[in-house]
């Protein structure tokens, strides 16, 4: 059974432990600016919303890549960017309608969530279980997929 990140914004306190865990795992430095997961703050509403790639089935990023640098990891279901193949053309960053693939100007490559190879550090760092890593059919993911579908030009395409 594939697992996926499930996010419950109601539980988020905005502490950014997830951003630090993510950046440390991927960049070796505590640096929210380099995190693949991002907590958005709605100050007036008093809400915090963590947000990252849902590893959507449609995988716009993967399809948009002109050099085959994004592949699906069959064990985790994550779309992974191969740094050695990515040329930094950024087409995936505009093709992903969720805004979760971002260009890293320091490296000239794009970065996105890869579920840390099946042990997402954001989830283990989250003190309130706002971010959990659960079976992919758990509720919540379906909801995100439903939003995804609204953007899908080819939702009915069978591949």
């Amino acid at each position, binding site marked *: 059974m594939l697992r996926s990140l499930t996010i419950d914004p109601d539980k988020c306190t905005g502490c950014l432990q997830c951003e630090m865990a993510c950046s440390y795992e991927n960049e070796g430095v505590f640096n929210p600016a380099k995190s693949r997961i991002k907590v*958005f703050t709605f100050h007036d509403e008093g809400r915090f919303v963590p947000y990252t790639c849902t590893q959507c089935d449609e995988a716009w990023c993967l399809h948009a890549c002109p050099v085959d640098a994004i592949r699906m990891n069959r064990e985790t279901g994550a779309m992974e960017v191969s740094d050695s193949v990515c040329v930094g053309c950024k087409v995936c960053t*505009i093709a992903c309608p*969720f805004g979760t693939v971002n260009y890293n100007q320091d490296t000239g490559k794009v970065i996105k969530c890869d579920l840390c190879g099946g042990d997402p550090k954001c989830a283990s760092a989250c003190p309130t279980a706002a971010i959990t890593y659960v079976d992919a059919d758990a509720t919540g993911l379906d909801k995100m997929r439903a939003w995804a579908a609204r953007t899908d030009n080819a939702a009915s395409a069978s591949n």
Partner: protein
Amino acid sequence: MKHVIIGAGPAGIVAAETIRKLDADATIVVVGDEPEPPYSRMAIPYLLTRSIGEQGTYLRKQDDHFRQVGIEVVVDRVASVNPGTRSLLLADGPGMQYDTLLVASGSTPILPPVPGIGGDRVTSCWTLEDARRIAAGIRPGSSVVLIGAGFIGCIILEALVSSGARLTVVEMGNRMVPRMLDETCGTLLEKWCNSNGITVMTGSQVEAVEDQGDSALVRISGGRSVEAQLVISAAGVRANAGFLEGAGVDLSDGAVVIDEYMCSSVSGIYAAGDVACGRDFSTGEYSVQAIQPTAVEHGRLAANNMVKHGSVTHQGSMVMNVLDTIGLISASYGQWDGVAGGDSATLEDRENYRYLQLQFEGDRLIGANTLGMTQHIGVLRGLVQGRFSLGAWKDRLKDNPLLIMEAYLAVTQGTG
């Protein structure tokens, strides 16, 4: 079933692989006219900067990838197509039968019609072969004239600058990348280029290229001239559909007009990518978009309909572009130039080369231009293509256009 695909670019290769996924037994042949493995033109700028080798431009990296998935890749040029017999003729090889045919033959650069344009010192920047010629033709200190500051022209600027060339860019329009960026954005980009030591002449035309032996004299409107060792023409492209002459396929400005099933006016013949005149998501009109995401989308959808006609409907592709001009990144989405009766929001930070412009129709986002932004810009696509009603967030975006991510979360997750 035998599916023949003309063109080994992204649209053709994605179509071929999609067909294979849908039908394990189908015969699939890709005919491409360049003597290279299928590669991506998008990667050429990075080849020129030597960030990658030629192999880094290949669409699929594994040597025998196409053989392994049972896709035959033929290097040849299609001479003509006969829909009556469902067959085509190749320039060098034997004829070929097909059950369905995908025209994904892309486009070819057009050279501006000026005297001397056919000279040895003039090249396009379109194919791997062009790239090799440019790489060989530039030395540190070389003077290079680039005709056209469109997408293709701009994307290779960094490579030209980093090779040590002195650059002059001649653009007919009143700003850089006029088909992708609005006036403020294009003008800022010009300023950026100037600050990087590039001479940019907008509102200008090359009038002649005169061979002077070891250099060429490029005559530019307004009585100016520049001596150059290399002239690169990036003045636009036209669809590659000459081989369809006599096939009865409806063309518009030389491109194949396709319906919602990616099919041309002739049954069994489909088209995708730069050669296809397809539906535009934003306007509902038919046009050639000539961009990577559309090529791939066309390819996938065409493949589905080639295997089972009518299985998938094309709702229209959205125009979107991203461009890296010597490290300054710009992007455009949908109707970035707005619509009559629409509304817009702008954030302008000239000093730091940052710009964000949003276009609304009612309370929906319909297009955007960005400059100097790299984070979460994809969500602009999500907002435009989802046709989300922004409600109160429209005013918040007008106050602060940077809140695009927040607006997206708010309208999709009911936050705020």
